[in-house]
């Protein structure tokens, strides 16, 4: 290994211009991400940035990393394939609340229980932006949208509580209203040696509710550190996470103080052990010889 070259935030910025609406929360997230990546310092070609479909899923294209803007809801399985194929890569997954908790909701629990060393960033805006303002899985109950003109009847998904209940080793929440704070949360998530999740409250300026905009965040956000929350306290983390939708807590809810070996490391051990039994390529077929 040569000494890591110093990378700056701008080294991760691509020439592609974001298509997000002016004022979108995702712009701040993107800046925070550049910063976090610069702080980590891995060269862009060693970063694989996987997303699904949605406004926020456009984000890989705005970085100089290898990106994969795949199909709706499938970023997590694809990212796991990438990481298992090449565990040396830094793998970041991003998407929206619809991508992660509606169409792709079935994948989250399994990504958590496999515990690959990847980071999942959800830009949660409580609405479908790309398709023009329909109800999302995190929309508050009663919300009137084009698909719930009389108000929604279902409870929202609580991403924080879901992830904690699934057993995720790192669960945090941030907002671009505090971009430097968000940047360091993303950095910390990436540094966590296992599956890490950051729920990012990233407002939709076009279809989002007034009380979910950045200026409200600025007034409302409360850091978990200021509450003297100990991120090793899983139960307290779950208790605090219950306030999703009412309070805007920022910071790390839970960080497993004793992270287990991630999946890809366990696999390396298995491969090393089993490789002793490998046959030469031209003799693989002989396993079926009948003697």
């Amino acid at each position, binding site marked *: 290994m040569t000494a890591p070259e110093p990378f700056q935030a701008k080294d991760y910025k691509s020439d592609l211009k974001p298509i997000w609406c002016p004022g979108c929360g995702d712009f701040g997230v993107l800046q925070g991400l550049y910063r976090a990546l610069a702080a980590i310092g891995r060269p862009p070609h060693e970063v694989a940035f996987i997303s699904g479909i949605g406004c926020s899923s456009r984000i890989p294209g705005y970085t100089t990393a*290898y990106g994969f803007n795949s199909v709706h809801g*499938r970023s997590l*399985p694809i990212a796991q394939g990438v990481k*298992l194929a*090449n565990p*040396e*890569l830094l793998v970041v997954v991003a998407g929206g609340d619809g991508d992660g908790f509606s169409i792709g909701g079935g994948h989250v629990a399994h990504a958590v229980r496999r515990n690959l060393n990847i980071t999942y960033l959800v830009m949660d805006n409580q609405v479908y932006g790309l398709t023009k303002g329909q109800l999302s899985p995190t929309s508050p109950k009663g919300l009137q949208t084009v698909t719930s003109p009389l108000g929604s009847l279902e409870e929202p998904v609580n991403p924080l509580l879901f992830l904690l209940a699934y057993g995720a080793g790192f669960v945090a929440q941030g907002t671009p209203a505090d971009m430097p704070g968000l940047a360091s949360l993303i950095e910390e998530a990436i540094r966590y040696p296992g599956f890490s999740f950051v729920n990012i409250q990233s407002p939709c300026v076009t279809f989002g509710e007034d009380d979910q905009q950045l200026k409200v965040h600025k007034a409302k956000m409360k850091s978990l550190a200021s509450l003297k929350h100990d991120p090793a306290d899983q139960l307290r983390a779950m208790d605090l996470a219950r306030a999703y939708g009412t309070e805007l807590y920022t910071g790390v809810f839970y960080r497993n103080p004793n992270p287990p070996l991630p999946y890809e490391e366990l696999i390396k051990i298995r491969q090393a052990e089993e490789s002793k039994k490998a046959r030469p390529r031209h003799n693989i*077929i002989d396993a079926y*010889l009948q*003697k």
Partner: protein
Amino acid sequence: MTHAQLGLACCSAAPHIMVDDLILGMAGAGGDGVVSAGESLLSAASSEGYHAMMTKSFGSQIRGGESSCRVRLSTKKVLNPGGALDVMVALNWEDFFKFGAELPLSVDTVLIHEEKVGPPPETLAARGVVPREVLSVPISELTKKSAGSDKAKTSVVLGLLSGWFGIARDGIARGLKKKFGNKGEGLLEANEKALAAGIEYAQAHPLAQARTIAPPNGTPGSKLLCDGNDMTAAAALFAGVQFFGGYPITPSTEIMQTLTREIWKYGGTVLQCEDEIAGIGASVGASFAGKKSMTATSGPGMDLKAEILGLATIAELPLVLVDVQRGGPSTGLPTKPEQSDLFAAAFSGHGDVLRPVLAPTDVEDSFRITVEAFNIAEHYQTPVIILSDQEIAQRKEAVDRIDTTKFEILERLKPSAKELESYSRFKLTESGISPISHPGMKGGNYLGAGIEHNEKGDPTSGGVMHAKMNQKRFKKLDPLKQRADLFELHGNPTAPFAFVAWGSTAGVCREAYALAKKAGLDVKLLVPYLLWPIAEQVYGDFFASVRHGLVVELSHQGQLYRMLRMQLDVPRGVRSLARSGANPFQPAELVTRLEGLKEMPQ
């Protein structure tokens, strides 16, 4: 050799026939061990150098349903499971009858049944077939007397078969040692005694017409014994598969099971995913990361994987997908073969997509077709579908050892250092193939995407670029249609009669073709391994002389026939012979049908 001596021993009572091909069937309740007995027979015969094939059939219960197997032994290559049985062992009638046409009897069949279930019921007579001989054997009683319990019933059956038909007695004895040797002395001894009791019974009750199988041509220990799924897995390892993502589904699961025992040895990974979509998703991810990647499924999984298949096409990522077909639609017939996924393989998913579809025809060529699928996927940067089916996938065959040194293995085209200085992932080239980078490769950074893109990989919604990219993705596969080696041709090129068959049906057609020739018909046979895209030239040349032809398929619609009609002018005299799955064709009936075309109006 032992069986030859045995054959002579049986000859005293009646004229002795020496056959080079023997088809046996067994049926019983799940738990009776008929499948296990079939496997012992297969393994014993193959270890002595016979060619052999075994197919299994079950009810869909997890345990305790009816189960059956067919074993075909031959001194020559076995082309298909065969038609009517030479020997049938029924442990009870009810289970036997459940298999209907899968276990057909003829006037040449020797029918052996458990004595205590009574003589054949009326149902058998109602089928209009009178077997040559019906032997009522007190199998349970023999087992109890010899082994002291009911557990070794299948060893008695093996003894009977060995005793009457001269099948691999040494091999069977060796097999018992292998199977029970480490399970306690008592169990092995009991089974050995049961085997001896079966042989003894057979010798004491000679057949009215003795029939034994000729000694094998092959040398002992020269045969590979496995099923199609195993062969596919081995071929994938040989081709260098590094990642498999999948979800259990009958009848493809054994591919994942075999790989997950083996792949670690070769530095790869198997990920059992949460669903079919994740299975193909993870595989596409691994391919994006630069590794040879594979997934496998059956019909219902094909439906779920359609969207990501489209992603692999537009992102130009190599991927091998094995669809082990079963009866459909929906859950359909999960444990029975059918050839009804061809449309799904070629067409499922939206948008303009050209996706190569290959089909093996038996266990042996599952190897070649799998290696070919990886080569095509990697070379052309495209998903490739292997259409196997339940019969090929789950039938076991003893085949000659495959010489793997004759196979070439292709890798995807990497960008040169010069190309990486200003890299365009989707560069519009003459061939349509652009060098492909992967994460970790400096300078190759690009955005892979399901969205349409320009040469750099940046998203676009422009019609001009979309048209160019569609053209690129289609054009790059043009050379496939020139691959004459992906077609098998038999017979006189100017023959007026013809069979076309693919997949497991091809094996039946190969035998039908031989039968028809023997009957004096000027006939030829075309077996396509490449099903899609349609190689118009190959079919056009083949059909040029054909006045009466059959495209034989195990599906209600006859999907290849319809695709041929879609792509080229199929002569009027070429008809579709199609019927739903789980109704296997017999070689003789195919000859009759082909001859019958002479009477049909053109």
